[in-house]
């Protein structure tokens, strides 16, 4: 469904992604693990083009979705087409990034109404049902700053789902949460996976990766070092660097 081919991305002099290729099937749950600074977030942000790689192709259902590369020159597609693709790719951020000036309900309704031009009443109905799904039916009128981190992240998930995306990207969705709030967010992600959502999950939660992922990818220094079923990565990693990393996180 999603293919990244030979992605290169630099920030100034730092070569953050060094030729990453990745393919994700419909319904698959892929977890990306790796040390801090290895380029996990950057890779994820290439999928919805929040980062524009200098080199490489991003294909969805076999089609270039953001740009053409003609004779080595990048030609971005019109903004309309880029935003149309992004509607199909949901994203959940480490810092939630809820809109603070909108209530939980309005956060979830905003894009369906403004982007999809859905009728207000329909959008509200849908938003309330999504908030109920994430266990926040009674928090609809609350503003983000009145909610706990875990509740905010659940609103953020509902907000992304409101656009009915084909795939959901999670960038360390639980890293900013107090430990006792991590579980409630992971539970919702697990539920989504069970329902068959295609998911790309950058995470430090090895337990989640082990249980929920169909495939685990270990990244280091802007490259995919090793990938495979969770069993293989966690029990019998082939690469030295994977073993070192797992030893470090499991010691913590």
């Amino acid at each position, binding site marked *: 469904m999603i293919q990244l081919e030979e992605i290169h991305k630099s920030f100034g002099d730092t070569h953050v992604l060094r030729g990453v290729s990745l393919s994700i099937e419909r319904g698959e749950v892929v977890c990306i693990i790796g040390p801090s600074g290895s380029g996990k977030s950057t890779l994820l*942000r290439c999928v*919805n083009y*929040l980062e524009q790689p200098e080199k490489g192709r991003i294909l969805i259902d076999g089609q270039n979705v953001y740009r053409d590369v003609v004779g080595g020159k990048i030609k971005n597609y019109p*903004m*309309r087409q880029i*935003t*149309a693709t*992004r*509607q199909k*790719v*949901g*994203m959940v*951020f480490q*810092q939630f*990034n*809820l*809109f*603070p*000036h909108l*209530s939980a309900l309005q956060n979830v309704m*905003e*894009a369906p109404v*403004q*982007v999809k031009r859905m009728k207000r009443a329909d959008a509200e109905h849908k938003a309330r049902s999504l908030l109920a799904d994430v266990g926040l039916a009674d928090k609809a*009128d*609350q*503003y*983000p*700053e*009145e909610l706990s981190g875990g509740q905010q992240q659940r609103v*953020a998930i509902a*907000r*992304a789902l409101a*656009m009915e995306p084909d795939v959901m990207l999670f960038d360390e969705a639980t890293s900013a949460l107090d430990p006792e709030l991590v579980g409630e967010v992971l539970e919702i992600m697990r539920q989504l996976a069970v329902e068959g959502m295609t998911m790309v999950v950058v995470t430090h939660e090895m337990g989640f990766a082990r249980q929920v992922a169909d495939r685990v990818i270990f990244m280091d220094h802007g490259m995919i070092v090793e990938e495979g079923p969770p069993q293989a990565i966690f029990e019998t990693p082939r690469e030295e660097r994977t073993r070192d990393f797992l030893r470090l996180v499991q010691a913590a």
Partner: protein
Amino acid sequence: MERPVFDWELARESWPALFEGLKLTVELTFIVIAISLVLGVFVALARLSKHRSLRIVTGAYVDFMRATPLLLQLIYLYFVLPAFGIRLEPFIAAVVGLSLNYSAYLSEVYRSGIQAIPRGQLDAAAALGMSPALSMRRIVLPQAIRIVIPTLGNYFVALFKDTSLASALTLRELLFSGQIIITRTYDYFTIYTMVLFMYFLVGYPSLVFVRYLEKRARSGYRRRRPTRTPVPVQPT
């Protein structure tokens, strides 16, 4: 030298003319506020535009307005433009001059507010499929404006006072109304004391209101309390 004496008789008979002046001052203030509140947003957006030429032109405009005296800008509009066949009424010249000047300043205020919005907000909006224009309108500007409301308020108090510069264009706002009376009576003390007092009469409550806005701005986004608290019934 004789001690100046406040002439109550003169004060009483000057009051209507001065009050007319004050009304014009307030009117001028509100018209310029309305124009520059809107124009300032567009200038700020132009300065943040992806089109280089638009950024350069608006940047030059803002710098020019900020680097030259407002009084001179007004004088130029009123006394120099007629040489080019553009004759403006004092009121129009004052509105144009003050609006151009304050729009430049306010655009800087808006710009700082826009730039204060964390990048994560733009990321979230973009990830939902919002276009840059839509996310500016629905996500960034509402938050940015809220941040800068107290600063805007301070500028409006400053503007209220700066309208007195239009006295140089013979506009009968509060200060010039006083000066007209003085050319007749030579009673600087009584008239300027009154004028000062009348500016304070409007300026001080405005200042208190701005302070209230500042306090409110710090309180963050909250669920609206049940909107209308019942008005206590007055004993009759």
